[in-house]
């Protein structure tokens, strides 16, 4: 007996079809459901961004993510509907990261750096197995990324890893596109030098 198989599609709610701009506008009017929807859409992106910025074992990723979306809530009324939402969101994320860095510096960041670098160093044991080469390269890239100056790291993460357009990144960081290209180029050069130096 042959039975007909009906594919199960996830049901699309109304919220999932609303554009980001409309959700931000609703946030500006005090709609918390819209904020919830925005969080569900973008919290992974923000986690990924902060993982690359601070390291994936950073303990405060939750708080940072929460701060970003609270920034969306409190600044929603200032959002210009024609500007790209991702650029605006990442602009908030970058500002939150800067504030966090400043407050961390006040709290004796030296200790944190000491322990975090020590744990990261232990992860890079050279392995003879070929399958692990890519993983090792990724770990080296991760280390090199963490050593990159912050202004270069932000640009590299947004342009290369998050694959945002240069103009969007310029909007997010409030810089000129030419500055973004220059920083991206510098970041690539520095990363390449560090990774190649590590391999030798």
């Amino acid at each position: 007996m042959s039975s007909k198989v009906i594919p199960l599609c996830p049901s699309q709610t109304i919220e999932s079809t609303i554009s980001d701009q409309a959700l931000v506008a609703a946030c500006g009017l005090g709609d918390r459901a819209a904020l919830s929807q925005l969080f569900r859409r973008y919290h992974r992106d923000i986690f990924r961004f902060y993982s690359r910025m601070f390291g994936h074992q950073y303990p405060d990723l939750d708080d940072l993510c929460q701060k970003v979306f609270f920034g969306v809530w409190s600044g929603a009324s200032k959002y210009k509907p024609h500007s790209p939402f991702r650029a605006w969101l990442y602009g908030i994320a970058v500002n939150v990261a800067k504030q966090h860095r400043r407050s961390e510096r006040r709290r004796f960041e030296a200790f944190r750096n000491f322990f975090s670098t020590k744990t990261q160093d232990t992860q890079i044991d050279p392995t003879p197995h070929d399958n692990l080469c890519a993983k090792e390269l990724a770990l080296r890239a991760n280390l090199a990324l963490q050593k990159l100056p912050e202004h270069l790291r932000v640009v590299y993460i947004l342009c290369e890893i998050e694959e945002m357009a240069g103009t969007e990144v310029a909007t997010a960081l409030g810089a000129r596109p030419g500055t973004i290209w220059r920083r991206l180029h510098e970041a690539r050069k520095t990363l390449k030098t560090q990774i190649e130096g590590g391999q030798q």
Partner: protein
Amino acid sequence: MKPKAPQCPPSSKLSQMANEGRLDELQPHLNDCLACQKQLRSWKRLKEASQATPWARPHQLQAQAIENKLLAQTYSSPPPQPPVYKDLRWWGAGALAAGSFGLAMILWVPQGQKDIITEPSIASAKISTEAPQTKQWTAPYLEKKQPSCSKSSQKTQKLPALAFSHTSLNSFRDFEQQSLIPQLGFEGASSQYQVQLGELARVHSLARKVALPQNEQLELPPAPTQPKAPKKYKHSAPKRKKAVKPVAQAPQETVEPPTPVVQKPQPSAQEAVEDTFVTAFSLYQQSNYSQAAIAFEKLANSAKNSTLAADINYWRAMSLLKSKQQAPAAQLFKRQLLKYGESMAAAKAALQLAQLSLAAGDQEEAAWALSFAKRDANPKIRHAAEKLWQQYLSTDETQKAPSP
């Protein structure tokens, strides 16, 4: 790495084009240049390695917990205010500050000016009032020790004949312009009018006049017709010169403003076109080609005579090409060559048209477009055109070479 050839684009430019996804513009060069290929490959490896770096994926429960905390935080904080109210709040504070400052100036300035002017002249008046001729009528006023401004203003209200503002009397020059000194006379002036003129004018006039010898008659000059400072006040000549300078400069300042008012509207139209162009181009850069094509089309219709018309046409054609509408794109590229043949983008348009024509099997048009590209000043475009020509059209070159 091999050293780069001189025709290679700089690394920063290559990086920018790679990020913007415009490497197909450099494809003819990249096919030949090993150094650039290697550079791009290394960047690609680096990108892949960076994207493979570990990142913390939040668990569903963790995300739910953060969301709950976030919502709780929104309930505990005040709801977001529209920026209008915040602006109004600042405007209100600014207006209040400006108002209070203005009020303080109104209350403070007459008092301050009185102090500045009267103090030295009172001293000279005290010395000069020893002359018996002047003692008679100056005595009642010098007995009063610096009456307040409010009292003098009350007195001016009683006498409407010489009612003018107190501040105008503060200035010595204004005092003379009003030709009050001839009205008062010197010896026969009634005390009523002198009181009316206030302390400042009175003390100034006394300071200058009472020092004369007893038998000498005073000859006061007639009231000056022009508002310039008279020569009579030689003791304050250096100060006069300083005071006259801004008066002389004032007309220049009033003449200048009309010029920017006329010039302002000119850049606004051009700026509007440029802004729209940037918006449309950003759509193109965001790979939103169909909307970019629509935006460029609207712009092309509205800004036909603009200086950006050639660029608008080219990028409209590129947007159509990217959105896989080859036929209208080819028409627009052809139009670029025919109408905007002198533009910077004409040679690129020729290359694109040649490729489209070759794909469509129209070798005549391809040859015509390539002949256009081969004449371009840019060696890269010439090289690309030559390569295309040799690849597809070299067999019957003599027959299909178009007339320029």
